């Protein structure tokens, strides 16, 4: 009782909300500070018994979860529910979220839990912590979606969408947008299913008309659902992708372009490589001019030089008439091969070998040297070591040949990689190796005089 009256008198301040963590002088928060202080405490006012048991119970649940003892965790959870009656209003308010977080995890993994149990739990929790209604609804819908229950998920999301409580806040708005977007995504799923059916129907069929009519309705609803969310900065790949697909289907090319351009170029959005990839894909489908494609990929090149589209980019640049594009084409190839994940990309090596020859034939030695200068102190160890020669030859002989050619051109014929591959006797590749030797002799940048 005394605690209760104390609660009434004392206004809850903002900084008292941190439960387990405490800020130190440096502004850092230490979740383990309480533990240290408890070792020192000798007397004085302690935490109430109730609070002690509930926090002990919480740690038991967490421990059981980490040991995958779902049964045990569920039993502890049963006891933990008493926290909902805590006299401390802060704890009481924070409790539903903790219960939902842990409880849903238990029910997700518990061997005896079923869909019904989960549904009941989620429905109960939505109404206990009113503040969490939207969040729980969304996660519940995802759970259903994951279990293949599209209808149920859709119904859930519709319910959540219309839910209103308290003041409007930006965080609630974002959540509602997210819920709508997921609903839109569900509608997209049904739509694309219909589209599949439609593609199997005959155009003159009577059923075709109704089906297409249906699809039209869907599309309209979906677009409303989806377009609100994708204005908010974030990563919305699945939504953007499906929205664009629908717009394209109905011939709204301009709309689709606008959505994608906005998604790729809006500065408030994180630099998402997929945004540029989607835009590129769209433009490619639209058969946009090469210049346009190159400009899109140029930005992607700056963000992710290791992307597999870079090889396509190189092809585009190679075909271009502009000299600067030719130079960029070389840069792109070198760029791809800089990355640890691309060292065995045979296409890239093939392109590089071919393009190096081509560039040197076109007497653009300066380009090659410019690229090589920044790499000459580490590429030999990174790509052309004796170890790699041996292991490449063992794993992939064609790759070894391509690399040897590049090594020969860049490092001269004294290079170990080149020498190793040259020495190898191979029936099938004999011709190739011979050709390689010739090219190296002719084009090697180390001693261009020869």
């Amino acid at each position, binding site marked *: 009782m005394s605690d209760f009256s104390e609660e009434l008198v004392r206004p809850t301040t903002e900084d008292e909300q*941190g439960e387990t*963590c405490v*800020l*130190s002088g440096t*502004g*850092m*928060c*230490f*979740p*383990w500070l309480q533990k*240290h*202080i408890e*070792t*020192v*405490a*000798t*007397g*004085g*006012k302690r935490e109430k018994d109730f609070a002690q048991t509930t926090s002990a119970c919480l740690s038991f649940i967490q421990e059981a*979860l*980490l040991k*995958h*003892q779902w*049964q045990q965790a569920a039993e502890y959870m049963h006891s933990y529910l008493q926290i909902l009656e805590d006299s401390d209003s802060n704890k009481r308010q924070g409790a539903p979220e903790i219960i939902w977080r842990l409880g849903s*995890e238990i029910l997700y*993994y518990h061997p005896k839990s079923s*869909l019904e149990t989960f549904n009941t739990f989620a429905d109960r929790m939505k109404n206990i912590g009113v503040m969490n209604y939207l*969040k729980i609804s969304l996660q519940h819908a*995802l759970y259903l*979606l*994951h*279990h293949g*229950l599209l209808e149920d998920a859709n119904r859930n999301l519709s319910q959540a969408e219309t839910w209103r409580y308290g003041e409007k806040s*930006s965080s*609630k708005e*974002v959540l509602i947008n997210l819920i709508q977007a997921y609903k839109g*995504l569900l509608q997209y*799923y049904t739509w694309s299913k219909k589209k599949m059916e439609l593609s199997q129907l005959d155009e003159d069929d009577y059923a075709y008309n109704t089906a297409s009519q249906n699809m039209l309705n869907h599309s309209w609803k979906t677009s409303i659902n989806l377009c609100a969310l994708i204005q908010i*900065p*974030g*990563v919305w790949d699945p939504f953007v992708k499906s929205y664009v697909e629908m717009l394209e289907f109905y011939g709204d090319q301009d709309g689709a372009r606008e959505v994608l351009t906005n998604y790729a170029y809006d500065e408030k959005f*994180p630099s*998402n*490589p*997929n945004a540029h990839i989607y835009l590129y894909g769209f433009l490619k489908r639209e058969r946009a001019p090469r210049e346009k494609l190159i400009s899109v990929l140029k930005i992607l090149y700056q*963000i992710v030089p*290791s*992307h597999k589209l870079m090889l396509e980019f190189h092809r585009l640049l190679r075909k271009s008439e502009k000299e600067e594009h030719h130079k960029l084409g070389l840069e792109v190839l070198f760029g791809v091969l800089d*990355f*640890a*994940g*691309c060292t065995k990309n045979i296409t890239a090596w093939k392109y590089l070998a071919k393009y190096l020859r081509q560039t040197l034939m076109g007497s653009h030695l300066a380009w090659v040297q410019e690229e090589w200068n920044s790499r000459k*102190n*580490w590429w030999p*160890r*990174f790509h052309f070591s*004796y*170890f790699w020669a*041996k292991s490449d030859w063992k794993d992939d002989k064609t790759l070894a040949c391509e690399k040897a050619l590049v090594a020969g051109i860049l490092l001269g014929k004294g290079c*170990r990689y080149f020498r190793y591959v040259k020495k190898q006797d191979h029936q099938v590749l004999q011709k190739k190796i011979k050709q390689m030797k010739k090219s190296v002799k002719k084009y090697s940048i180390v001693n261009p005089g020869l």
Partner: protein
Amino acid sequence: MDFPSSLPPSLFMTGPLGLSDVPDVSFMCSWRDALTLPESPPQASENGAPHLAKGLLWEPDTPGPLPLLPPGPDPWDPGLTARDLLFRGGYHFRRQPRAVLDVTEQLSQFLWDHGDIAFAPLGKLMLENFKLEGAQSRSKKKTVVSVKRLLQDLGGHQPWGCPWAYLSYRQRRFSILGGPVLATSLARLLGELLHEELAARWEQLLLDDTFTGGALAWVPGRMPGAGQLVYPAGGALDRLYFQKVSLTPGSEPRVLGDPGHIQLRGPVRQVVTRTVQGEGKAHRHLRPLLTDLLPDHNPDLLCPSALLAVRSDYHCALWKVGKPGQPAPLQVLQVEKGATGISLSPHLPGELTVCSRSGAVCLWNPQDGLRQVYKDPETLVFRDPSPWRWADFTAHPRVLTVGDRTGVKLVDTQGPPGCGLLLFRGGAEASCQKGERVLLTQYLGDCSPESLQPTFHLVCTQFSLYLVDERLPLVPLLKWNHGLSSTPVVAQLLPPPRPGCPRPLLLAGQAGELQLLHITGEGASTPRLAGPPQSLPSRSNSLSAFPLLEPKSQWRLQERLSAPTIGLAATVLPSASTPVLSLFQLSAAGDVFHQRLHLQADPRPDSPAPTASWTPRATSRCSRWLKTLLEVPLTPPMWAAPTFSHRRLLGSFESREVEGKVPEGLRTAMAEGRLLQHRDLGLLPTREQPPAPEPGPEDELSERLEAAWEGQVAAWWERRQGGSSGPGKQPKRHKRRTQLSSTFSSLSGRLDLSDATSPPRSPDRTVPEARPQPPVTPPSQELTQGPWAEGIPSERQQTLRDYMAELPLQGDTPGGASAPSSQTSSIRGTSSRQQTLRDCTVKLQLRGDTAGGASMPSSQTSSVRATLSRQQAAILSGSQPLRKKPRMGF
């Protein structure tokens, strides 16, 4: 490289930490993370079952890790704890616990222990006569003190450690007059420094970043399963050990031979290793420097050798561990401001990054030397006082990550200095909490891109773990609340145990907690947690494998087992049936523990996880380890026995020309400054011990406790084992028992005059001359002198005896005598020697009261008591090593 074709939806907010109005759409829970959106309409999952490997579980073979190597010969001290630093008492529970540093106690401790340091400078300043501002009315004689005389008084006198040491009037006056002045000046000068030091120690206790990255490394050998453990050990962790270990999937690891070691000049903080595939010749091709140092002349270039980078506080060093096993030093680097992190390149052999507290990050190559690639004394995102910096590699060999407490940045070493993109930002972008800081970052790429793209970085804060793709900066692809109750120290990504399996990621907290996560994400799918994370047994879980000990040793063992984790190494052993994970842990005490885990073959959700139990082999291994541990001497206590000035007393002695053997012995002992012993005094040899206080044979418990208290319980046990069979001791004990029982019978109140040979003794009987004839025949005085005199230095005995001589005659009537004596004995019945002393005091007081102050003034009584209690303290501290006092390292 493949990029995920569709990233999981996430909100992108910019702003500071703990922005309240952000809905947390990053689902911080393993199951929600598993719910990735289906790529296509989810027809495939219509069947209802989520296609997710639900229980990927590693089962430990034993309930806890086992010691792999015997404990080192150096004692280990757990160091400062919160108890030493914080104010005790007056604890008031609050939602935000507050730590209050206890400066006053530390200050008083310091003044006691280092009085010379604290007061000497001031004394030197005041060497000539000085005047203390006193009341005008006081005469000059009382306010002016000559320091010269004062120093003369103090000559050879070292009062610290002994509050009751002799003080002259002059000194007393000086301390009264000068106290306030000295106290304030000292408090002003020292208090601030002390507070600063305490605060620094407290910060270090809360967050110790010296061992970030881990100081244990596994260098795989030529054969699968064979390899070397590299770790620091020794009292100061300044010896780097190389221990060959052979692992087999079926059994515990075998330690091959004795470890080799290298003595270093500083403590080892971090050990990093990378296998270099046959780089000996490659180096030779480039530069002669490396190859000259390398012993690698093996024609088989595919033989693996490893590079070993070691970080100490102010030095970094690079070794090559070749096939012959002899590590060859390559280069040493001095870091003036202190190094905070070192990492070895996974791409280019021998390339390292070194970070310094000054905010500089250098790329270091034994051939090309050192190159500073980044320098910024300020932190990246917002201002944070920590000088901790970290650097690691990325998928591009020329791009590094540079991290501090506030974020992680990608820095191109070839570009203009200082530019780069932020990879991770402590802020709303990652929905960080208020007060969240980066504690550990690590590049998770290695040379097997099949299972996971080589572009991922791990960022750990005190709350969460983030997985970031360097191609998508600022947006974490995965966030999980790790819930560790200490600083995350090491993280290690392991190769998949089976092809197609998710990759295990180990995370170790400083307090010994271990967590295992599974990360999956092949090709074009986004990385996510496969199954719920798992916690692994920590070292303190092994306590049950050790035999039960007496409390003192048990505490020691417990303390040792809960020593902070400073290193972690793990390997997955390829095995036909079930993959086995071998896990090595290094503790701050230099202990290496090992744990084997195997992947549960077919996780059946319905069956409860079988619990591991200790095997006899494991427990015997633990017992052996424990035996060695208990043989290691404890750290000698920092407290030293007080020293007394004796020169002055010696002079006065000599002037008196007393004849006799006793004063002679005393004089020589004093002159030599050693302890006075019985033989010096030429006293009669001690007779057989009087019977009463000796515990009887039945009283094994107290005997054992006594032995345990002195830390010799094992010896006691052996003695007992041997003794019980030997016939020699039995009759004596028997005799004692009868004596004891007679003592008890005498306590029952009747006076049994016939039992005169062993009556209850009382200390007052030791008074030799002044004793009247008591009604009960006393034993001879030499006999009774034994017990109490034993613990007291002889000169004190003398004083005591003198005082006792002054006591009023006791026991006028037989009835009066029997009552107090029985009282005394009843106290003594429970006692040991120290108790006897106390009885003596009690008795003295008793006498004083009953006598009505007839012969002894009460002040004298108290002084006697003071002497006694001091002696008692000295005895107690002699027999029991005091707990190390908290004191600061000035």
